[in-house]
């Protein structure tokens, strides 16, 4: 037993470490907190997807159940364009967000991908209100020589519902 399930996995001839996954997720978090959305978008492979499950989620596939977000690549692009516009009223002015990511686990490896999970806490401030979003990521990352990219970025909220004021106008 080499412990690779929890710590690292060999993919496409190179070894993915938890450290590398953590760096990727931390970098993503800072791009989002700084609203560097164009750079953030480059973290997706062409054709990548993004999902945010509803709070009653029990493992459903976003093609057969409702969700908060189930963006294909074009929709992620449209979302970025929208959020950069002054006319995205729900985010004008922007929310201030502060993301904490932990409990990063490499779940499994495929030929070209690695499945990871991580916990998140996102604090969001806007209009005098403070909101916390707690949940888990379950991502499928494409492993390339240069680094990692999202094939599927999935957030699973742990809350029972989105509280008053806690709409998801930003990226969870």
């Amino acid at each position, binding site marked *: 037993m080499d412990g690779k399930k929890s710590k690292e996995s060999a993919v496409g001839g190179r070894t993915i470490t938890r450290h590398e996954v953590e760096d990727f997720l931390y970098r993503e978090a800072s791009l989002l907190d700084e609203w560097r959305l164009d750079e953030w978008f480059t973290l997706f492979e062409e054709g990548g997807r993004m999902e945010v499950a509803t709070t009653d989620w029990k493992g459903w596939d976003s093609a057969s159940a*409702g969700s*908060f977000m189930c963006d294909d690549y074009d929709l992620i692009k449209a979302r970025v364009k929208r959020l950069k516009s002054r006319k995205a009223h*729900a985010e004008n002015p922007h929310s201030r967000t502060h993301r904490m990511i932990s409990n990063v686990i490499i779940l499994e490896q495929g030929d070209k991908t690695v499945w990871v999970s991580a916990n998140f806490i996102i604090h969001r401030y806007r209009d005098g209100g403070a909101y916390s979003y707690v949940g888990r990521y379950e991502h499928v990352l494409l492993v390339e020589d240069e680094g990692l990219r999202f094939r599927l970025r999935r957030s699973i909220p742990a809350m029972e519902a*989105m509280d008053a004021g806690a709409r998801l106008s930003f990226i969870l």
Partner: protein
Amino acid sequence: MTQLTQGYPLSSLVKEDGEALSFKVHRSAYRSQEVFQEEISKIWGHTWLYLGHETEIPKAGDFKTRTLGGRPLIFCRDSSGEIQVFLNSCTHRGTVLCRHSEGNTKFFQCFYHAWVFSNSGDLSALPGDDAYVDVPEFREAMRLRSVPRVQSHEGFVFIAFDPDVPDLMTHLGKAAHYMSLTARIGPAGMETVPGVQLYSVKGNWKLAVENAMDGYHFAPTHNTFVGYLRETGFAVTDDDQYAYDLGGGHGLLILTGHNGRIGMVWEPRFGEAEKDRTVAKRQEMEDRLGPELAKEIADASRILFVFPNLLLFDLEALTIRQIDPVAADQTSVRAWQFVEVDEPAEVRALRIKTMVSFVGPGGLATPDDIEAYEAVQRGIEATANAADPGFDWSDMSRGMANEQKGNQGRSIDEGAMRSFWRHWAGVVGRD
């Protein structure tokens, strides 16, 4: 007569002046705790309320719990397949009986003193029942409390806490037809899917109703969404968009040129495969329903409001939205995707993706709506107890001249809001 702190009696919160073409709503209607309490008692206590759809609990024993108008409820299908709606409160000492949000069970057991009720409401076991006199009568008297009235139309289940409300169909009136149109889209019927959007907004429930019935805000508020539609090859227009007063506080917007409709009006972002299916689907509908009805269902988008808490968004795809007042400045919302039974998996996926991209707190459009009415809720504090009391009114007179001429109201006017408020004034303003 109830007096409000700002000196306006409840019955004069809505002011209409036909000569001056002026229609105003006093802003305490959105702010005041007293108004809110009046609404809970006069509307939520005495009107049919949308509870949920039968397909949320398809199998015997399925249940969901939810709160409506402040009352915890159990919405379940009993072992014989009947829909039951109970107050979620143990008849012994009042404990919330079922503390799960959903599940399947034959029995609900109260954890406090372990009384057990069947899913049809019978008290089937109580520990130490020898200490109660006349045990069978006692058990009968301690059945779970059913909500006084439960009726459904096309699978949409409504309840009333007042046993004396008129029949559901009387309440629905003309709105019933538009619910039926929606229910007939799929040859094998329609169903809700799991994945319910549960969220709350910091705004009065009536602002959520106004927003849904307000075509005037569409272009400015949803500028980025309209831009996205244009880029995907679909031009949105304001033409042929009308508002209808269905009576009883119910309202309807009928929108053509608004957006595509999956299986009915193709637009490029739906993809080529969907183009062919749209032709086939239209044929299927004509064969099944006749050309007239197929046309009515397919050719226009509709937003239906059923007073006081159901919104049916029959747009690119369908969403059922239920609103539930929590406080004068807070509203809970539940939203379900409503889909054709047995449709192909790729159509289901397209439908869900398309609808979720627009509606819901993570969509490309709804967050801006929520921003709008949360901003109203904050902004109307500015004029509370203003030096000039004339400032403390919201204006809803857009399109009144046209209305007086008897022309069909445009969705970009405020006629649908006026009909809502006229009805509201009749219900809440009554002492």
